[in-house]
């Protein structure tokens, strides 16, 4: 078994002794080489989780291993793009990239940085403060990618981008993953945005990990069913069920063969995610947490 990109065990974080837990009891394992979507509503703890993995926040509870070591030691091998894409506003685009080269000696890939920035038709002499949100995202991604990280953590990377730039930069990210085997973790509250690009899912809700695993495995483990209203859905695990008229429709995790008179269908990733988020009490399948091992 190879070293996982991230392995969290009972991870918890709260800001201050009396504050509510931003993240609680999170356990999951992300193998290397995956493109992982961290999905959840705003305020679910996605940013906190990414910041802990990036070595920017120390966890209050539990342990986390990044690339086989602690996050602080892994920092040189990890790329991170913050949600707000902070950059020094007084520097020009070109200066920002030269700073990246100076601050990452021995790792910097100037060609990658130039290519990403060039895709945005950016004047290299322009100051960061004069850039649009999308252009800043491009520069921030260039800084993170040119560091040649083994693990790339991106917090809401596509939020400021128009559809064209989104597609292009997602292509750049996927190219990076294909060429270097970079593990990429990106958060979003828009599932559809990540569906094609990610093969692994981490669903965070209310500070907890609700689902974790390979997307294909997760989809295969769930079924959409409709049956007559009085039907007992046991012994299958019910994530969500709704009765309309004489019919009950539900999203279940089958624990065995289903009766022939139920009509079944495969859920989409978005349906799966929404069902879990709408039903905070639905049990997290323990087996899917380990499915990725």
């Amino acid at each position, binding site marked *: 078994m190879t070293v996982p990109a991230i392995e969290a065990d009972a991870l918890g974080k709260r800001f201050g002794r009396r504050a509510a837990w931003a993240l609680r009891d999170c356990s999951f394992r992300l193998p290397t080489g995956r493109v992982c979507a961290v999905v959840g509503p705003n305020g679910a703890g996605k940013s906190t989780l990414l*910041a*802990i993995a*990036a*070595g*920017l*926040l*120390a*966890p209050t509870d539990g342990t986390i291993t990044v690339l086989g*070591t*602690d*996050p*602080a*030691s892994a*920092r*040189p091998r*990890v*790329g*991170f793009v*913050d949600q*707000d894409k*902070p*950059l*020094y*506003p*007084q*520097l020009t685009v070109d*200066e920002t990239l030269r*700073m*990246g080269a*100076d*601050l*990452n*000696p*021995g*790792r910097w890939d100037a060609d990658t940085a130039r290519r990403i920035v060039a895709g945005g038709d950016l004047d290299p002499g322009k100051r960061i403060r004069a850039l649009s949100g999308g252009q800043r995202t491009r520069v*921030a991604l260039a*800084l*993170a990618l040119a*560091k040649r990280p083994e693990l790339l953590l991106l917090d809401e990377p596509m939020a400021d981008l128009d559809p064209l730039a989104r597609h292009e930069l997602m292509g750049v990210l996927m190219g990076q993953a294909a060429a270097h085997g970079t593990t990429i973790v990106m958060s979003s509250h828009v599932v559809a945005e990540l569906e094609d690009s990610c093969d692994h899912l981490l669903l965070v809700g209310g500070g907890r990990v609700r689902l974790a695993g390979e997307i294909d495995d997760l989809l295969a483990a769930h079924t959409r069913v409709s049956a007559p209203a009085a039907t007992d859905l046991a012994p299958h695990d019910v994530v969500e069920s709704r009765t309309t008229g004489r019919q009950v429709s539900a999203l279940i995790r089958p624990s065995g063969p289903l009766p022939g008179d139920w009509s079944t269908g495969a859920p989409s990733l978005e349906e799966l995610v929404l069902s879990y988020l709408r039903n905070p009490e639905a049990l997290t399948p323990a087996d899917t947490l380990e499915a990725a091992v």
Partner: protein
Amino acid sequence: MTATLTAPATTDRPAPSPRQLRWLYRLHRPALLTGAAITLLLGAALLWLGGPLTDASAAAWKEYNACGFSPTCAYDQSSILLYKDVYNYTTFAVLAVPFLVAAWAGGSLTGREMESGTARLAWTQSVSPARWLASRLAFPAVLTAAATGLLVWLHRLAWTAADGRVDTALSWDHFPTFYANGTVPVALALAGLAVGVLTGLLLRRAMAALATAAVVLGALWAAVHAALPHLWPAVTEVSRLGEGPLGSGIWVGEGILTADGDRLAAPCLSGGIPGCGSTLADLGAVSFYRDFHPAAHYWPLQLVASGALLLVAVLAALTAFRLLRHRTGKTTG
């Protein structure tokens, strides 16, 4: 002062160390240029004060003193006044420098980076938070010490030039003069730097850190000022009851001595004042005493006060490192 606190390199391969200094300079170029301009202008003003202004004022005082009380005598009054004004302004300016350093350190050096998130950007390049902080303390500390050191030295030169030549020249124990002539502003500026850096990290807001750092530095100085008379053993001068307490310098305390050697508070300060003599006699007073610091205590007082301030600076810097390590997590491997 802080370079030794840098965390050991934690990369698993020996990577060349990041070139931070160039970017620290680039990011704070306007502040550095402003600081250099202030130092040069203030330095030039102090040279002007110690040279031509002192000469002109001394000459005017010579004229004035030669006049006696002749009503028609003319002397260069404007030179005297100009000297006095420039002396007061430059002294005030030298003492204000530490506050500028504290405000800049809190607001710009760390506060703004925490507020905008650029600190996190730096930490996720190949620069560890400890290294980031070390560079933000070490290089400004060198420049701050050099600039304030130069200014107090020039102030001292200007003050010395007027000694005995300008009748209104302020004495060594006049407090603004006392501070501006010694090492305290240097230590105060370094403490301001460390306190500013710490408040920036704590408050994570540029404007709040700027104001807080300046206020904290003011409080620190007030504390040092209150403690100043007790930072070095005072000299006691005993005088006869008819003379009142004697001894000039930095005042520490005074009163009456009894025949047994007890020290009592003095109800009045001269045996010559009617009623006072008998009151003193009732108390059993045999003499007055005064505890004070003579001019010879100037450097001991300066150095002890500076040492206390430097200790505060080191503690603030250490706290900043610990805070950052606590927040971002430490390396275990």
